[in-house]
């Protein structure tokens, strides 16, 4: 491969301009709840149709990188994740903002998103053939285990009880099953409501469960004075950077690998890296779920590293790693290119443009993410009587923009009421959203794994021991389930010995 093609953006400055513009737009689009990277890039496909292929790819790559980071801003400031990949960030990011650390948290999210993006791009450059080969060894049962680990991870954080977390995750999966079954066309839990035939839109559910329910909770705290944000020292010291570097590298590796798995994107990468951080960081800055900076660094590094990972199966096998790369495939096909085996040899210029585009976008992300931090943090200091109606109207726009439907707004508010009830009764909300997001992955792989084992559940469970990948995932699953009890047991023992 002619690696000198990596320098093509520098020979055509317009490409650098498009990468910069895309990153800037991506950050602000990603920060608006309801407007995701998927939506922005699908809009761009129609907008850039007829453009020169290089310019279109540069713009889309910039938006992709910017939007994945942008989702964390609203998660940290308002507890409304801009995208599913930022749901985990809100677990610790929002409590940090409530303690006056919003500026520093947003800077950390940006900084480690840049590291994740660069490591993901380097992995795409050097490891693409190796990773794509390994990801093809994943079987249906492995995907099933992967989704279960993700749900258990979030289920065990954010409230005191794993049982309540599992309940919320199952409730989310149950909500995800509403509508017409993709395989059998059977209507499930639609109760004759036409709107429900196509299922519950997870963006509507996400805005309702996070945004609207948070507004309802805050209505009870109107008299509480907003926390004054510390903006004097938002950059971490070199020592802090070195301290968190091993965690960032571990999270990036998880992000790259999970991103490379077809169908598993930044959301699962963020979940697994968070779980890894929770189990491996011995003395976090605060307990996880209550404002640990490690709980922001791990998912933010992983979800951006997953971008590079997601391009691996897309470019080398023609299989999209996530929803955004699925749209990329259509954009490349429109340009007369066919991603898949042999693509790296037939179109090395496009492959290397994507790699370099990710790295340049990461540089722009570092520059642009510093813009608006002070302005964004001021959002928290706005009086609640003004802020809450504004959040509600933004949520209305986010829900409406999906299908231009008033019914979506109504469902968003119903999910808001559900989220409020769950919060008041001590059940976590994040697992519900992730349950809805992960339901298709869970169900399709459960059915496939069962069918491959002759509809025999026992044989399916035993098949787990046929592959080392499955055995590793089972160990991780058990670790996710038992880590809380083991930690509590050890803490109790330590207390007794004292």
């Amino acid at each position: 491969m002619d690696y000198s093609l990596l320098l093509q953006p520098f020979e055509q400055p317009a490409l650098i301009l498009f990468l910069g513009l895309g990153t800037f737009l991506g950050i602000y689009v990603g920060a608006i709840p309801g407007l995701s990277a998927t939506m922005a890039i699908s809009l761009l496909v129609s907008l850039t149709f007829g453009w020169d292929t290089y310019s279109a790819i540069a713009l889309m790559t910039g938006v992709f990188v910017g939007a994945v980071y942008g989702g964390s801003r609203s998660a940290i400031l308002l507890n409304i994740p801009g995208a599913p990949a930022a749901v985990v960030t809100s677990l610790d990011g929002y409590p940090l903002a409530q303690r006056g650390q919003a500026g520093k948290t947003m800077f950390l999210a940006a900084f480690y998103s840049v590291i994740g993006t660069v490591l993901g791009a380097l992995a795409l450059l050097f490891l693409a053939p190796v990773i794509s080969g390994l990801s093809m060894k994943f079987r249906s049962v492995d995907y099933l285990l992967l989704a279960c680990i993700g749900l258990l991870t979030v289920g065990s954080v954010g409230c005191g009880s794993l049982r309540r977390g599992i309940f919320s995750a199952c409730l989310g999966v149950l909500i995800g099953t509403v509508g017409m079954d993709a395989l059998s066309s059977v209507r499930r839990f639609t109760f004759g409501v036409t709107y429900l035939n196509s299922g519950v839109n997870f963006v509507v559910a996400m805005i309702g469960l996070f945004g609207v329910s948070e507004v309802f909770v805050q209505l009870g705290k109107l008299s509480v004075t907003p926390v004054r944000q510390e903006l004097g020292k938002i950059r971490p010291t070199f020592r802090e950077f070195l301290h968190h570097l091993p965690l960032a590298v571990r999270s990036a590796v998880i992000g790259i690998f999970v991103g490379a798995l077809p169908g598993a994107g930044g959301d699962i990468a963020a979940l697994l890296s968070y779980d890894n951080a929770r189990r491996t960081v011995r003395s976090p800055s605060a307990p996880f779920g209550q404002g640990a900076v490690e709980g922001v660094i791990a998912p933010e590094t992983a979800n951006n590293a997953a971008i590079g990972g997601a391009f691996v199966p897309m470019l080398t096998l023609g299989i999209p790693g996530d929803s955004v790369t699925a749209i990329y495939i259509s954009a490349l096909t429109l340009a007369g290119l066919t991603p898949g085996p042999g693509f790296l040899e037939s179109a090395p210029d496009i492959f290397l443009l994507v790699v370099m585009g990710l790295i340049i976008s990461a540089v722009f992300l570092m520059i642009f993410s510093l813009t608006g931090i002070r302005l964004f943090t001021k959002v928290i200091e706005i009086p609640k009587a003004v802020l809450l109606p504004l959040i509600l109207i933004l949520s209305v726009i986010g829900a409406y923009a999906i299908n231009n439907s008033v019914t979506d707004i109504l469902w968003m508010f119903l999910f808001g009421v559900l989220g409020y009830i769950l919060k008041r009764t001590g059940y976590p909300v994040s697992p519900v959203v992730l349950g809805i997001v992960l339901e298709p992955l869970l169900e399709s792989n459960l059915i496939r794994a069962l069918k491959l084992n002759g509809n025999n559940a026992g044989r399916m469970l035993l098949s787990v021991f046929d592959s080392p990948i499955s055995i590793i995932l089972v160990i991780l699953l058990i670790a996710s389930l038992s880590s809380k009890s083991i930690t509590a047991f050890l803490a109790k023992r330590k207390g007794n010995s004292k």
Partner: protein
Amino acid sequence: MNKRYISLILLSFSLAALAGSISIAVRNPPFAGPGLMPAVVSAVMVLCTAGELIFPVKGGEERVPFPVRNLLIALGFIALLCLALWLGLDFYIAAGIFLMGFMCCLSKGKFLRNLIVTAVSLVLIYLVFTLGLEIDFR
């Protein structure tokens, strides 16, 4: 509300979901069919809520007063907004009334500040969403 009542309500909901799932599975025979996933998750929900009923967990719930007045105001304005949009009223008129009314009720006055915030917000929404992102609110 007493935790036991909440657990009972959730257990009843989980049992109803399980019954619904089983009926889907029975009507659509293959074991690996459309009823399987809902049945599995609702069975886990039944186990979790039954566990919650027998061994209740302490804490976890929001410790803020139940804001009856503010919640009623919010739900009233939300209902009004949905109704106005459903009846085909222009989005900017409906959103303006919603913002202004809701802010005035929450802040008990401060009419001029709320009027300015509403006007600025609507202009920004128009610039970003209608002009920039071409979202059609009609």
